[in-house]
């Protein structure tokens, strides 16, 4: 290969590898935005999203329940009094009020296989609970104010036990609606196709117990209330994909509950803000003071280089070690407990090098002659510094503080053993609290909700981007 080709090749490789960096960034940010804004989960349920029974009633619910449908099984447990709140259904923290039109009492009892309590029997004209209401009303009647139609799904895919038995340590998983259709119209002829045992598919319309029990590999689409009474027959769970918005106004404005499994992040955002303010309040005077000392007071020599290497080493100390140190000193030695103040003190030490370095740089760039002039006019050194040097270096110092803020905002490991984990808004300096980055960590580690972790992560990255761009703008303005 001649030199020219080698040159072109090598330069192209350099350019391609550089482009990879951009590609990585685009992938990371793009993926984060995608997962942060939308969620798309595979959920398993017991029923197909269709209604096969023809009853003399329809179902209505209030809007705040956020129910988009209800399955026969859920309605069954509500009627039985087992399901009392909406929490496990739609994450709404509201009691369920279940009402039945007296005119359809018998039908409802037969359909739900449960006696309806007298307290649930309510005429349409009486007053209703405005929240959490589910109303079973005779068909054709207009529902009360605030109630909208709620689809009721009650169709089960019943199968012979042979389909769902464990074989070779494997078991048939859930099936999708399309796969059920394929079973019905004969496209799928063997359960192997769905990851089940090597058994032929026999689809029976409206099968009876006996038929399902005695035909190996048989499957039928049945009504849940018919099926519920049967034994010895199994049913397949149906998987469906649930899509929706991850970040909503509500997510930002409600408090986190039960370690972040429910609710939003309002309390966590407030705690984060409090922590950042505290950290800046503690670290700014020390950091800027240190920078002033280094550039205005310290003489070149071993003492100054000692301080300088101290800053270098401190900048390289891993955050987990800061966390341990904070735990030993602030939490245990000073008895500050796992609290906002312990966490903030730990972070303050951690961001000191950032503040010192940027502040020192911008103080050094101030023309020393102006200081001498000020001294010559009779001002003391500290007076010259506060009235001449600091105003001139203000922009650089603030930029450093903003950068340090960005670092504090994204920190996790130093906070895990210092700041506590309460999801409530901190009521005092010594109250346990959690902040955004650490909240993401805890939500993942505790297995609460990966969707919520992504939503919080998107908020965190947006805050970081805002901070970075402000710092960048200020730096450019300075030049």
């Amino acid at each position, binding site marked *: 290969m001649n030199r020219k080709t080698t040159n072109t090749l*090598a330069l192209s490789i350099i350019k391609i590898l550089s482009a990879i960096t951009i590609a990585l960034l685009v992938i990371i940010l793009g*993926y984060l935005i995608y997962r942060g804004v939308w969620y798309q989960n595979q959920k398993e349920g017991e029923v197909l999203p269709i209604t096969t029974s023809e009853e003399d009633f329809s179902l209505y619910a209030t809007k705040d329940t956020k129910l988009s449908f209800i399955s026969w099984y859920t309605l069954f447990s509500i009627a039985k009094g087992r399901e009392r709140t909406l929490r496990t259904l739609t994450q709404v923290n509201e009691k369920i009020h279940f009402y039945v039109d007296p005119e359809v009492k018998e039908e409802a009892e037969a359909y739900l296989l449960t006696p309806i309590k007298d307290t649930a029997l309510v005429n349409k004209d009486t007053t209703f609970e405005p929240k959490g209401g589910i109303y079973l009303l005779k068909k054709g009647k207009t529902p009360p104010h605030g109630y909208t139609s709620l689809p009721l799904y009650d169709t089960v895919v019943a199968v012979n036990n042979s389909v769902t038995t464990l074989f070779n340590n494997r078991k048939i998983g859930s099936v999708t609606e399309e796969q059920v259709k394929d079973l019905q119209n004969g496209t799928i002829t063997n359960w192997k196709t769905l990851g089940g045992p090597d058994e032929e598919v026999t689809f029976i319309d409206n099968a009876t117990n006996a038929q399902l029990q005695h035909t190996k590999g048989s499957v039928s689409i049945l009504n849940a209330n018919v099926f519920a009474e049967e034994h010895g027959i199994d049913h397949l769970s149906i998987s469906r994909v649930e899509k929706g918005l991850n970040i909503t106004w509500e997510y930002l404005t409600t408090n986190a509950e039960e370690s972040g499994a429910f609710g939003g992040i309002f309390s966590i955002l407030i705690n984060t803000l409090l922590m950042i303010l505290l950290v800046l309040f503690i670290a700014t005077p020390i950091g800027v003071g240190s920078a002033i000392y280094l550039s205005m007071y310290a003489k070149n020599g071993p003492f100054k280089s000692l301080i300088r290497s101290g800053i270098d080493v401190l900048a390289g100390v891993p955050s987990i*070690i800061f966390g341990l140190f904070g735990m030993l000193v602030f939490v245990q030695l000073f008895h500050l407990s796992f609290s906002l103040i312990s966490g903030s003190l730990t972070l303050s030490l951690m961001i000191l090098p950032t503040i010192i370095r940027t502040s020192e740089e911008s103080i050094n760039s101030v023309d020393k002659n102006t200081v001498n002039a000020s001294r010559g006019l009779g001002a003391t050194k500290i007076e010259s510094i506060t009235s001449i040097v600091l105003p001139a270096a203000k922009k650089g110092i603030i930029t450093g503080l903003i950068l340090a803020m960005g670092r504090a905002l994204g920190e996790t490991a130093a906070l895990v053993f210092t700041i506590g984990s309460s999801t409530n808004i901190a009521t005092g300096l010594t109250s346990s609290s959690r902040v955004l980055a650490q909240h993401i960590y805890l939500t993942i580690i505790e297995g609460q909700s990966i969707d919520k972790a992504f939503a919080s992560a998107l908020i965190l990255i947006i805050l970081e981007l805002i901070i970075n761009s402000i710092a960048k703008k200020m730096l450019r303005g300075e030049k």
Partner: protein
Amino acid sequence: MKNKSIKMRKQIDTSSRYFLLLCGTISVITVLLITIFIVQQGIPTFQTVSIKEFLFSTDWSPSKSVPHYGVASFVIASFEVTLLSVIFAIPIALSCAIYLSEFATGNFAKILRSGIELLAGIPSIIYGLFGIAVVVPFVRNTFGGNGFSLLSAAIILAIMILPTIINFSEVTIRSVPRETKNASIALGATQWQTIKNVIIPSSISGIVSSIILALGRAIGETTAVVLVGGNAPIFASSPIDMGRTLTMNIITDMSYASGVHMSALFATAMLLFFFILLLNLIVVLVTRKGAIHE
């Protein structure tokens, strides 16, 4: 200011001098205190566990009836992850540094520069989350295993340390005098030959220190690796196995440890701190050597 007496102004000046001196020394004091506290908590480990067992045994079983505290597998995992990440990062990072310092004109360079700034600004927890959702499945599908592995951790770390290597290398590459480069070109060398034979050799000490700084960042990283590394306290025989690094050991066990187990974790932190200090020292030596050469 006018109302204050000269004596008072002098007093303020002197006391502020002492305050600033205190501020100036706080970094050194913090480093000393960190060392003292970690060592003080870590040393009691060796009353029950021999140093030899601690350093060279791969058996970490603090909850057994006869507990063992050997961190050898974590040390090896830490080195493995760190070295792998640097190996992954070097080609990309050096290309970026060379591109930015030698050909940096036009929009692409601008985009590249802000891209690197953004990468540096992404918090480690977000890298971890990205790792769980993207890198772990990728490793699972490409190399087998369950995806939570030292390899996944190394890939995430490689992305995280890119800005460190790029920024520091770029500065040193830029500092190679223009005349030297021009001389090489004038002698008929191609751009690539100039890069290979002139620019890289003369900025090698800066490049090496940037890599060592990156090693320090990688070995101390905790949250991102704990989410993707598998965190199994056993010896990982291959990079696609689950493993546990020193930092993962500290953050995982600290939440429930007590007694000897607790001080063994501080001893782990001691070891980590020792490695970091060692890397710092090497950076100082390399830069000094580079300075002498120049």
